[in-house]
């Protein structure tokens, strides 16, 4: 790979933002969705096409479809309508976007990204724009504009960082979500979002893992765990009458390093004797509907409550995943509730009632584990994590769509001896995206991913150099999938792990054999003695 990415152009642009021309350069855009996946979901205009082609094979009345779609959404979403109107272009958001920081493409400044759709809104929906056109900031809707939307709305990871800084709370994620919905209406989808959504809809998870393979996968994990700990854990699947339904992102049982996090969950559940079940039907916590349309989000999310009802569980526990938790926290019960068939979650071990989740009845595993640790219900040996010098990457959605900041830190600090924070403008609510969120983590988009991930990597490099950090902990499946590549490129020598992998390493299980490896099967580094050994006098 050439190193010109290191040279991030800081020269301000000379061009006119009104010019919609976009060059679809390899490495900076995602492939279009395959017709069969579009069809499987019953979405409009399935066809084979390529963003780099001149002809996108749009339906003949595409313009009317988009304008009608905008009109409908302006009536349905106050957020959309308001955000079309109130931006003053103060510029506070400009250098908050990781894609802008990494690419210097001015249309990646959040205010400009929004302006791409706002200009069309002004031209067709406001009196000033209808009369004065360009002078009032309006732009004609042309096919070129559609291509520009496609390029830039799939260059936004819906991370909401800009929204933290906006004096009016304008949330570009909201605008991007609507922008993508509009594009979906005329069949401009990307494969990396549509295929997982189609698989999730039919089979139950993004990776299209069928129920028997789901079971194999979990059993294989249990075998691996047995090798490390000497303990065989149960794999209850679709078990009726369990107290808790556990839902995780499918990557946890199919990809590394997610997999080690799964081993962590398994050891935890076994150790506390949790009465729970996995589900092969609701075998996906993640929701790529969030990245295509509100309707798709609801269609995919419905399985979780349906399955909880069918199995008769009391409440639901959710694994480590970023956007999954945005959906569960901010959308699920509104869309598919009320969850009146569930109970307010109560920890069977500590008796803590998770009052903050009393209505949704779904608890984040970090909340659950933090509560266990606070009540000293787990025995930990943090020395087993001594080979790691850990920092924590707040995943965008749990940070800015929920506020889950302290719980994972509490678990990490108990499970690891060496923990260091990255600089304060890059963590918590100001955290930087991995650069691959919202369905953009595909390999054909690698250059843009590495650019977008640069600010995050930059902060990791800081703690790597200052404190020798060699492990980036996180609670997001997309982070775990894409940050190893990001680290390899910008900060070699830093690995990526889930919080519950580290917990699993440290967890002393009843009846376990002496551990010689961590959950990755790597030898435990002998702990550094706390006091230097006394010098033995010679002679």
């Amino acid at each position, binding site marked *: 790979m050439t190193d010109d990415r290191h040279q991030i152009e800081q020269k301000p642009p000379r061009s006119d933002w009104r010019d919609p021309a976009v060059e679809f350069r390899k490495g900076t855009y995602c492939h279009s969705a395959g017709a069969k996946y579009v069809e499987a979901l019953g979405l409009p205009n399935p066809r084979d096409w390529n963003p780099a082609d001149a002809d996108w094979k749009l339906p003949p009345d595409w313009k009317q479809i988009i304008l009608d779609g905008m009109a409908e959404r302006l009536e349905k979403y106050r957020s959309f309508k308001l955000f079309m109107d109130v931006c003053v272009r103060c510029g506070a958001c400009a250098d908050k976007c990781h894609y802008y920081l990494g690419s210097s493409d001015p249309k990646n400044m959040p205010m400009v990204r929004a302006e791409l759709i706002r200009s069309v809104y002004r031209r067709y929906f406001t009196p000033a724009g209808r009369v004065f056109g360009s002078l009032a900031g309006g732009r004609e809707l042309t096919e070129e504009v559609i291509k520009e939307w496609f390029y830039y709305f799939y260059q936004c990871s819906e991370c909401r960082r800009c929204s933290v800084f906006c004096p009016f709370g304008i949330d570009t994620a909201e605008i991007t979500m609507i922008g993508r919905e509009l594009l979906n209406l005329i069949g401009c989808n990307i494969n990396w979002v549509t295929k997982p959504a189609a698989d999730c809809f039919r089979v139950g998870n993004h990776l299209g893992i069928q129920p028997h393979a789901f079971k194999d996968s979990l059993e294989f994990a249990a075998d691996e765990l047995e090798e490390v700990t000497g303990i065989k854990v149960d794999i209850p*699947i679709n*078990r009726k009458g369990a107290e808790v339904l556990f839902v995780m992102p499918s990557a946890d049982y199919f990809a590394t390093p997610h997999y080690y996090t799964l081993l962590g969950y398994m050891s935890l559940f076994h150790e506390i004797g949790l009465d729970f079940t996995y589900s092969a039907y609701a075998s996906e916590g993640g929701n790529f509907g969030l990245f295509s349309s509100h309707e798709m989000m609801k269609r995919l999310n419905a399985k979780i409550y349906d399955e909880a009802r069918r199995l008769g569980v009391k409440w639901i526990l959710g694994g480590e995943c970023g956007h999954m938790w945005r959906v569960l926290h901010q959308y699920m019960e509104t869309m598919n509730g009320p969850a009146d068939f569930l109970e307010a979650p109560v920890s069977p071990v500590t008796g803590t009632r998770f009052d903050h989740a009393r209505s*949704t009845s779904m608890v984040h595993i970090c909340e659950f584990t933090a509560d266990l640790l606070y009540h000293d219900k787990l025995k930990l040996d943090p020395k087993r994590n001594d080979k790691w010098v850990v920092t924590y990457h707040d995943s965008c959605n749990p940070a800015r769509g929920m506020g889950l900041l302290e719980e994972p830190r509490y678990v990490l600090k108990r499970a690891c001896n060496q923990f260091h924070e990255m600089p304060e403008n890059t963590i918590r609510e100001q955290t930087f995206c991995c650069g691959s969120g919202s369905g953009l983590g595909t390999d054909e988009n690698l250059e843009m991913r590495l650019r977008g991930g640069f600010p995050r990597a930059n902060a990791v490099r800081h703690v790597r150099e200052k404190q020798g950090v060699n492990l980036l902990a996180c609670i997001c499946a997309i982070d775990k999938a894409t940050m190893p590549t990001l680290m390899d490129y910008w900060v070699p020598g830093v690995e990526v792990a889930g919080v519950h992998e580290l917990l699993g390493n440290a967890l002393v299980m009843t009846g376990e054999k002496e551990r010689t490896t961590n959950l990755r099967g790597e030898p435990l580094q002998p702990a550094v003695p706390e006091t230097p050994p006394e010098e033995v006098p010679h002679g």
Partner: protein
Amino acid sequence: MDLLSSFLIMAALVAVPLLAGVAGGGQGVLLVGIPYAAFAIFIVGLCWRVVGWARSPVPFRIPTTCGQQKSLPWIKSATLDNPSTGTGAVGRMALEVLLFRSLFRNNRAEMYGQRYVFGDSKWLWLGALAFHWSLLVIVLRHLRLFVQPVPACVLALGKVDSFFQIGAPALYLSNVIVLCALMYLMLRRLWDLRLRYICQFSDYFALFLLLGIALSGVLMRYGTRVDVVAVKQLAIGLATFQPVIPAGLGLVFPVHVLLVSTLAAYFPFSKLMHMGGVFLSPTRNLANNSRMKRHVNPWNYPVKTHTYAEWEEEFRDKLTMAGIPLDEAKND
């Protein structure tokens, strides 16, 4: 282009009343007709826009959380930056509207060598806060022209504002601050090339108008020494719907009035509506309590899902083979 056109329109808005003044005509239109029309457009337009926003529902509870959530009792939650109650949300909005909380977070990404450093950058916050607060003070001070007797609080405000007693008539601090802040806000749009890339007519025009209004006002108070009694006579006449046009208003005054009228009439059609919009922003004015209390979407509609029964039907053989229990209702 946008800069030039906004400047030209601005120049015309200054020239017209000046020429009319020199020619000695059109005072009725400039000082009575246009202000009334502009004020009507302002009020009606403002309501129309706010009602327009309010008519669109808030289907989902989507606050941007800027601090620790309320979860376990022993974890301290950020009650203002991530409120879990209505009161907290009101507090968050108060901070936002009165002190520009979000803008206060601003930092600036600077590249040093091959890395970004995020330094504090409070200038925009300071400039914006200075402008808005001094504008508010100035608007309130103007009440003394429209109301007789002048309310004590308005007089007191004027006293505080001219606390330093510099010159005669005493210099209002808000006048100095508003001019400095406006100059800063204008210059940064020209100076910062990132901003200049996206700045539009509306951005320049609003600033030109405000600068013109402030400068003409300052000029009348400290330079041409407008006849305040005459101004008050006009203002009270307008306020009581018995307009009279007194003599001795000078050349600058109609310019000031036309610029204010233009601003008022332009307001509902422009980005200046952020004044009303900030209160309605769903990422700020909602409590983050989605898991405590169900938020209802008024247009929630049924969607096509893939039900468990359909799924079981499709994968029945594989489920049986793997020994995963089937739905008992089906098995019986």
